[in-house]
């Protein structure tokens, strides 16, 4: 007997589905990071894990602890808010750095800087 047995069946099935969905999205995101061809394609893949992956996992965690403690617990939303705020900032910084480095090397794969920039 553990704390998980205290969950009613509907909550157990809901948490199971949410956990699996979250892990699946994170897995597909990392698979894309491994498989895609160049950096500018690869940058898109892990965001699947940071948005939908964390969303489903946080929903599972909120459901599980709210049902276990018998009161609504929204503490996990902090992680969601924080990741939603920071992921675009980090990726924009990273892609701008990569673009700058590619242009410095005169790479033919990226467009050159337009005059007004």
């Amino acid at each position, binding site marked *: 007997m*553990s*704390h*998980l*047995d205290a*969950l009613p*069946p509907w909550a*157990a*099935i809901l*948490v*199971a*589905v949410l*956990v*699996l969905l*979250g*892990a*699946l999205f*994170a*897995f597909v*995101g*990392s*698979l894309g*990071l*491994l498989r895609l061809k160049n*950096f500018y394609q*690869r*940058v898109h*893949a*892990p965001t699947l*894990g*940071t948005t939908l*992956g*964390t969303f489903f*996992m*946080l929903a*599972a*965690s909120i459901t*599980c*602890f709210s049902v*276990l403690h018998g009161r609504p*617990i929204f*503490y*996990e939303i*902090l*992680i969601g808010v*924080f*990741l939603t705020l*920071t992921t675009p*900032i*980090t*990726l924009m*910084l*990273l892609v*701008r*750095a*990569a673009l*700058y*480095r590619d242009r410095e090397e005169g790479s033919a794969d990226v467009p050159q800087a337009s005059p007004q920039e």
Partner: protein
Amino acid sequence: MSHDLLRIAIVAAQLLLLAAMSFSIVRMVRGPRAQDRVLALDALYVNAMILLLTVGIRSGSMLYVEAGLIIALLGFAGTVALSKFLMRGQVIE
């Protein structure tokens, strides 16, 4: 019955996340360039945070959520510092 389903689902999710983390590590080792490695580090810490949340659900302790929050915070700072370094060649100007 549904509780066995939940246990199997949590273990399966942890295995999937471990595979995702190993994919990120492979990308970090293979490169080919520095920005790919930084991107792989970013994906790695997010996957580690999601894995900690599943461990928290499995053990029934809210402490793992706080650990996940700290991982998200430090990972953000690390990725920003590394991107800044790639751009300028130094972190603090």
